[in-house]
């Protein structure tokens, strides 16, 4: 699949004249890490009503900007060294579940992913052992904690004491938080959130939690930053991507993700495995498999929980339950099995096309 161009103008791309540096670029202490100086990303030409993100974004004009920059080592990814961690093998599809006791006894897949909403309770973190006991999961069923959720919840984890609790919670894999990289937002805020994702990953690794980084980009400079980081940290074998909000068939964000993914994978030698959250249609899976070898991709999504018309199997379950309301706990594994089969078929198609 040829994805040569970034959908939003990159440095010098398609322009007769180079853009001027952004208004804040001159005195900016992180201009090299930023890489946006002569692009539309330095200061976007148009902002939606909420594009600037309100008062809670990191902008060069904030009085505490220097402190935030310093706390993240000038947004230098190389300041964060990964440690070799024992990371479990993942299948091509990992279902996610939400906290519902109706699921107890109905979860039979070898791996499940859970999200912060399912494990945060009354100001503390449910341990993997608690989740297993309550939902009747076997000791060999793996639990992946996917720190992909609303930012308000994710902020909770950017705290040394909470990170320590999390590290001791016993999950088989922890995917670092996807602090949002919305567009448009001040470029500094995007750097802030991408760097914090990595900082949390490395903090968890220091605490011996099997954590993997979440990577993201808004344009090619970010991809270069991640490529350089991977080169300096060859022990990293799995990275995670949150594509949940890259919606819509012609979504610029989705295209931006794919172009970056192709570039990132090519420049890292096609050796990494990917855990990608979000794509939930055959069309999206095909696009992912168009840029990444299917055998290196694990897909996961939360869409199995969405209200949909019951499938034939679910209708059957409804009929045998004596006309009572559909037992969600019994329907959920049916949806999981169907999704696993769909993903496996998409993988096979992609491999056949490649051959």
């Amino acid at each position, binding site marked *: 699949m040829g994805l040569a161009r970034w959908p939003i103008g990159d440095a010098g791309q398609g322009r007769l004249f180079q853009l001027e540096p952004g208004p804040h670029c001159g005195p900016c202490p992180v201009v090299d890490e930023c890489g946006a100086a002569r692009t539309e990303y330095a200061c976007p030409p148009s902002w*939606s*009503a*909420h594009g600037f*993100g*309100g*008062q*809670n*974004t*990191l902008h060069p004009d904030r009085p*505490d900007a220097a*402190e*935030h920059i*310093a*706390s*993240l*080592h000038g947004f230098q990814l190389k300041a*964060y060294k990964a440690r070799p961690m024992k990371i479990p093998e993942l299948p091509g599809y990992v279902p996610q579940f939400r906290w519902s006791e109706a699921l107890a006894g109905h979860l039979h897949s070898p791996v499940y992913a859970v999200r912060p909403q399912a494990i945060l309770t009354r100001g503390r973190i449910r341990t993997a052992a608690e989740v297993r006991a309550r939902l009747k999961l076997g000791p060999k069923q793996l639990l992946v904690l996917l720190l*992909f*959720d*609303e*930012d*308000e919840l*994710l*902020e909770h984890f*950017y*705290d*040394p*004491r909470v*990170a*320590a609790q999390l*590290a*001791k919670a016993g999950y088989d894999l922890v995917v670092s938080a*996807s602090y*949002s*990289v*919305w*567009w448009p*937002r001040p470029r500094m*805020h995007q750097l802030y959130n991408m760097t*914090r994702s990595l*900082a*949390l990953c*490395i*903090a968890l690794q*220091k*605490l011996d939690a099997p954590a993997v980084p979440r990577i*993201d980009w*808004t344009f090619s400079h970010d991809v270069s930053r991640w490529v350089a980081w991977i080169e300096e940290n060859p022990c990293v074998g799995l990275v995670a991507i*949150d*594509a*949940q*909000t*890259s*919606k819509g068939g012609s*979504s*610029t*964000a*989705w295209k*931006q*993700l794919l172009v970056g993914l192709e570039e990132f994978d090519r420049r890292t030698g096609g050796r990494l495995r990917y855990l990608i959250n979000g794509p939930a249609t055959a069309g999206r899976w095909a696009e992912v498999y168009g840029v990444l070898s299917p055998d290196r991709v694990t897909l996961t999504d939360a869409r199995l929980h969405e209200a949909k018309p019951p499938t034939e199997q679910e209708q059957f379950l409804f009929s045998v339950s004596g006309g009572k309301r559909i037992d969600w706990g019994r329907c959920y594994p049916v949806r999981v099995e169907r999704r696993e089969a769909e993903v496996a078929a998409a993988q096979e198609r992609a491999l056949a096309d490649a051959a």
Partner: protein
Amino acid sequence: MGRGPRPADDPPMKEPVDLVAEIDVQDNLGSTGASASRATNACEREQEVLFDLAGPVATAVGEEVDLRAGDPIAVFNHGEMIGILTGSANRAMQSCIDFGYEMSGSLVSLDRRAGTGVLKVSGGPR
């Protein structure tokens, strides 16, 4: 959790924190999972701590000092506040005070031009 366009404001930003450095400090003090005895050792051990002077204070090298709870932690000499702790030293001493230690020692050096000084302190039972 997202990327791409978003129609809402972001949540409040936290105070700047170097998460990895904090983990190191806390781990050295035993509060993130290492043993309590390691924490005890770290707090009881004599250690040099940099602090910021609170103006042109009347004190001298060798004088006795003690640390008092607060954020930032205050450095006192004969009942008078002479400075404050900052950064990782502040967080480390905060943890020791939280563990129930009374931190005291002496003034090792003063740099009045830079407005800083160095203490040598260790913890004892309160």
